[in-house]
């Protein structure tokens, strides 16, 4: 184990004190949403108790403080990602999903026309599929899918062919179902070599390994605060400044305008052009605290630790169930993260999750908003366990105990 101490992380998470069906909680659903450290909750409390006001248009002191909280979070996020152009590349949204919609309806609608191709992958979350289908319906673009191989990885053997007519490659850094980590740096090279841009879904990656936008050389990145120890109600779209500055507005309203008259409006410049209305302010205080917390742990430490956890779980799952529990995803930790989708022979994922709940184990059954991927593997659903920096090997112990019960019960 690294010097990183998950037991102390756990002590920072109030929800870890929950007892469920007489057992201590075994939270294995960080892929859906992470648990929230005390410091993040307290940062939002402090905001409401001392600094709350609407941002931007105030002169008085608390309005300035609220603005500093908000703009400070932009700075902090830019540094966290090593954004080449700094804070002016950070747009705050409601969640990763809004970020993709913004991308599709602003950049996409302005830059793409009938016949242009957006290349996504079969392992994308609906957030990175449906907005492109909507753009297909409104603008006649084509949505094409990079296939996923039987090894649960992107099949890029025919990438040259797939790239024909592509203006944007939009792929996830890590699959929320398979755990597969995609070669973003290499895909960026391919995209750029073909004159296309590349967008990355960082929802599953930003809290689990370090993100260096300069090194990745991508053009867009989307993610949600609630999956990175932060609060609900806040997401981020990062876009390269030279691209962002040419993008037309998305939603209309206060804060995104330069001028309005009864005859029309003109839009503001910078990220605020895309932030119509009163933004999630307290939530940005929470995001700043979450980033501080994550960086305090060390992103590389987190990645290394979760790799160990994942490796241990994969090994034991392979050993203990005589093949009745199948992992839908890469079977070793090479290029994969701590999301483990399970297919239990003869037991529907819903039932798996129901039995596990009796043991206090929180796993998520379902299609995980990745129905094309499910269809690719002929599955309706999986039961997914996923780790966070507060997870312990003992969580895997309980998971295995509960799985054994499910297998027996439906046996």
């Amino acid at each position: 184990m690294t010097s990183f101490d998950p037991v102390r992380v756990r002590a920072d998470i109030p929800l870890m004190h929950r007892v469920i069906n007489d057992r201590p909680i075994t939270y294995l659903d960080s892929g859906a949403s992470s648990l929230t450290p005390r410091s993040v909750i307290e940062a939002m409390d402090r905001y409401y108790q001392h600094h709350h006001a609407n941002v931007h248009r105030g002169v008085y002191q608390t309005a300035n403080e609220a603005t500093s909280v908000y703009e400070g979070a932009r700075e902090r996020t830019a540094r966290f990602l090593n954004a080449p152009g700094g804070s002016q590349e950070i747009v705050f949204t409601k969640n990763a999903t809004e970020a993709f919609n913004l991308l599709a309806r602003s950049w996409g609608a302005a830059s793409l026309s009938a016949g242009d191709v957006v290349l996504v992958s079969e392992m994308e979350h609906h957030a990175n599929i449906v907005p492109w289908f909507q753009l297909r319906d409104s603008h006649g673009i084509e949505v094409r899918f990079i296939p996923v191989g039987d090894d649960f990885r992107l099949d890029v053997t025919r990438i040259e062919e797939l790239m024909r007519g592509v203006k944007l490659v939009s792929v996830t850094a890590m699959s929320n179902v398979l755990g597969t980590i995609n070669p973003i740096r290499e895909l960026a090279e391919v995209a750029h070599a073909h004159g296309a841009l590349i967008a990355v879904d960082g929802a599953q990656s930003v809290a689990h390994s370090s993100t260096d936008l300069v090194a990745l050389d991508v053009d867009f990145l989307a993610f949600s605060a609630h999956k990175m120890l932060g609060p609900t109600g806040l997401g981020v779209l990062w876009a390269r400044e030279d691209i962002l500055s040419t993008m037309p507005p998305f939603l209309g309203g206060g804060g995104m305008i330069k001028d309005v008259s009864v005859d029309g409006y003109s839009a503001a410049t910078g990220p605020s052009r895309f932030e119509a209305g009163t933004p999630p302010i307290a939530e940005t205080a929470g995001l700043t605290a979450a980033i501080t917390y994550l960086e305090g742990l060390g992103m590389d430490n987190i990645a290394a630790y979760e790799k160990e956890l994942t490796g241990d779980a994969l090994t034991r799952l392979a050993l203990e169930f005589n093949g009745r529990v199948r992992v839908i995803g890469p079977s070793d930790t090479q290029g994969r993260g701590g999301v483990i989708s399970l297919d239990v022979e003869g037991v529907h994922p819903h039932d798996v999750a129901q039995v596990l709940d009796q043991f206090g184990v929180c796993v998520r059954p379902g299609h995980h908003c990745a129905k094309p991927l499910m269809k690719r593997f002929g599955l309706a659903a999986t039961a997914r366990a996923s780790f966070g920096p507060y997870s312990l090997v003992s969580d895997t112990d309980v998971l295995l105990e509960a799985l054994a019960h499910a297998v027996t019960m439906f046996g």
Partner: protein
Amino acid sequence: MANLDDLYREIILDHYRSPRNRGELGPPATRVEGFNPLCGDEIVVHVLVEDGVVTDIKLTGHGCSISQASSSLMSSAVKGKSVEQVRGTIESFKRLMTVHESQLDDSARERESVEANADGDLRRLGELAALAGVVKFPVRIKCATLAWNTLTQALDESEDDVH
């Protein structure tokens, strides 16, 4: 694990492992798909109504033990019954599945009458009563009712065909 046993009664596990009336029916049978978008359960109900009677019913699709057992139990319960009777059964079943919510909301007095009602229903429902434990697991209620809602729609559509 008393709770789990309430949910997974032996008869439910049996219908899950060996579902009745699996398969499809061609025209003139009515075919309606039911989705539970939240969990991905899919049920396709094929129903043949002749002279006001459900003369045949077949099911395809996939889902959890509760949705599968419920649809299997449903198919056994409705086959050969008049549309009128089937609609009654659907109503009784859905009432059974909503007791829980009433219990949360209503006063004790109303609750009792609902329960009395449910008891009456329970007797009428026969084997279907095995699903009564589902109400203790509110998220699973949608699993149990999916087939029934789909059947209602199929009956409506087959009646539309007639008119």
